[in-house]
């Protein structure tokens, strides 16, 4: 709908070409007698069995879906719908499936509410099955860590928020809802082993939930507070490397939590900003401001310059840290991921007058705020840093090893909320 005029301008262009064509047709037709054969109906595409580490999923809240993009070949591969409101897709390591905790009303925004865990096939990107859930899942602005898969893909935990808090446990092997287990005022859902999840409490403590083989509660454990939510809270957007979860606070303190043992180990904290950088007001912020690369033990943090309470402001740089050395090893100045309007990319091509293309690119990179709100890093050998800005359907691609800007991939939608690169090689 939205780009009807675009179609029309193309049409105007066509009127003009028609003249040439008429001519062309006459001349050509004598020569080339290429006769097109009738084509089969009903063809539907399928994806290869083996996903690529550079396949990236991107949530678009306006188009109500999560889209799959091959950043290597720069192809839009397809999408999976998300239902009403925000949602967090889950990507199992073993099964060729995608799980979507989704919410529906019988009349779109009124009537009866139904929550389900949807199972979609990864090859056909088609709905397969749904598992009914208590209609309680949290519909918060940023859905990161609002659901989790156990390390063996057997169980899913979905975070419920009704002013009270709980976790819905689903057995993905048996494809059935197991139990709703209350979490004493603690929020979110993080995996910590094959039978364990944890949540963050308002006190700054962690609440651990151990499951039995059926997925019912086996035991629970409340840790000591490891930070002060009133002084300097950690964000909800922690990322995991191996058995360590990395929480980062508004002021840039990294709180590593090792969940390998029976009890969580709060490893020594460290800072991502030096004294001078702090003076220069460098802070982390954004919707998805952390990313990790397992193999190289790298933590990537989205940074900007701003005062207090700017913990949701978009970023202008990404800083890469070695989580073992606690040292910064990479500093990537960011560019705006790409200009799209109503799903159309504004990008120089042959139709642009000579020189204007280079001018446009230069001006875009030179004068345009990077405005990056989400980052992710692809797994595997030569990792790529993928960036997005929430009001455009575009991806900025960088070499995650040396920070080199590689390319833009667009259009991929109308808006871009969160990014996922789940397919390790």
């Amino acid at each position: 709908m939205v780009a009807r005029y675009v179609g029309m301008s193309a049409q105007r262009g066509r009127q003009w070409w028609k003249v040439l064509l008429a001519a062309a047709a006459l001349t050509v037709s004598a020569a080339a007698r290429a006769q097109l054969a009738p084509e089969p109906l009903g063809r539907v595409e399928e994806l290869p069995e083996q996903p690529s580490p550079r396949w990236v999923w991107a949530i678009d809240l306006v188009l109500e879906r999560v889209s799959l993009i091959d950043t290597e070949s720069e192809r839009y591969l397809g999408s999976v719908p998300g239902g009403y409101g925000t949602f967090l897709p889950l990507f199992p390591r073993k099964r060729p499936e995608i799980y979507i905790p989704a919410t529906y009303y019988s009349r779109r925004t009124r009537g009866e509410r139904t929550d389900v865990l949807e199972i979609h096939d990864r090859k056909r990107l088609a709905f397969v099955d749904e598992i009914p859930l208590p209609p309680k899942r949290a519909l918060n602005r940023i859905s990161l860590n609002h659901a989790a898969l156990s390390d063996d893909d057997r169980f899913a935990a979905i975070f419920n928020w009704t002013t009270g808090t709980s976790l819905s446990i689903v057995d993905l092997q048996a494809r059935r809802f197991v139990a709703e287990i209350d979490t004493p005022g603690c929020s979110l859902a993080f995996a910590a082993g094959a039978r364990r999840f944890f949540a963050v409490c308002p006190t700054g403590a962690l609440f651990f939930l151990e499951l039995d083989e059926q997925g019912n509660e086996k035991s629970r454990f409340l840790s000591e507070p490891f930070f002060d939510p009133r002084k300097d809270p950690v964000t909800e957007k922690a990322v995991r490397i191996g058995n360590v979860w990395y929480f980062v606070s508004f002021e840039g303190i990294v709180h590593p939590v090792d969940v390998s043992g029976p009890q969580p180990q709060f490893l020594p904290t460290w800072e991502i900003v030096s004294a001078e950088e702090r003076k220069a007001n460098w802070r982390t912020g954004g919707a998805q401001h952390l990313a990790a690369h397992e193999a190289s033990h790298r933590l990537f943090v989205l940074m900007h310059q701003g005062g207090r309470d700017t913990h949701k402001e978009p970023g202008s740089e990404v800083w890469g840290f070695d989580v073992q050395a606690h040292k910064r090893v990479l500093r990537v100045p960011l560019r705006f991921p790409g200009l799209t309007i109503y799903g159309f990319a504004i990008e120089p091509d042959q139709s642009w007058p000579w020189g204007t293309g280079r001018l446009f690119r230069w001006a875009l990179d030179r004068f345009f705020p990077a405005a990056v709100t989400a980052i992710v890093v692809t797994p595997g050998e030569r990792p790529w840093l993928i960036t997005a800005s929430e009001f455009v359907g575009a991806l900025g691609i960088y070499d995650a090893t040396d920070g080199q800007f590689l390319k833009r991939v667009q259009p991929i939608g109308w808006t871009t909320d969160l990014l996922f690169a789940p397919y390790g090689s």
Partner: protein
Amino acid sequence: MRQDPGQESRFDQWFAALARRFAQRTSRRSFLARLGAFLCGSAAYPLLPVARAATARREVPAGEPGVDAPHGDPSRCDYWRHCAIDGFLCSCCGGTQRSCPPGTIQSPVTWIGTCRNPADGKLYIISYNDCCAKHVCGLCYCHRNEGDKPVYFPQRSNDINWCHGIDNVVYHCSTAIVVGEAKDV
């Protein structure tokens, strides 16, 4: 419509003046802002210099102009087969001009257009089968009305939602499939 060549120069003068004036009294950013505010509209409408969708799939059958020809690129609105289409191009949505994106269902019923293939100068009947059962694709919208008729004349109407003959009327994108050669009209 408002293409008055006589205005060209006056406009440019006005524009240069405007630019200087803005630059003097406001910061670069807000300068861009004011200007952008006015221009972005223009950009968003007929004037939009949209690039062909780089993320689209370009499947180019033998006997067609080829992706680099003005009417040869299936991801462009002015691809020759699109002469009577109204919808989102499946080539941009995970399919091609001849196949549906993963997880959608192709509608067996449809409307048709008659388009000329620049490569052989012949007219072909094009069937614009919709791909259905997923929420609207939203990429590469294209609307052309050669021979389009009102909805009470269905087989030639591109305003009709053609997701029918299957159990879901949710529209996702449109294909443009060659049915056969048409008698020259």
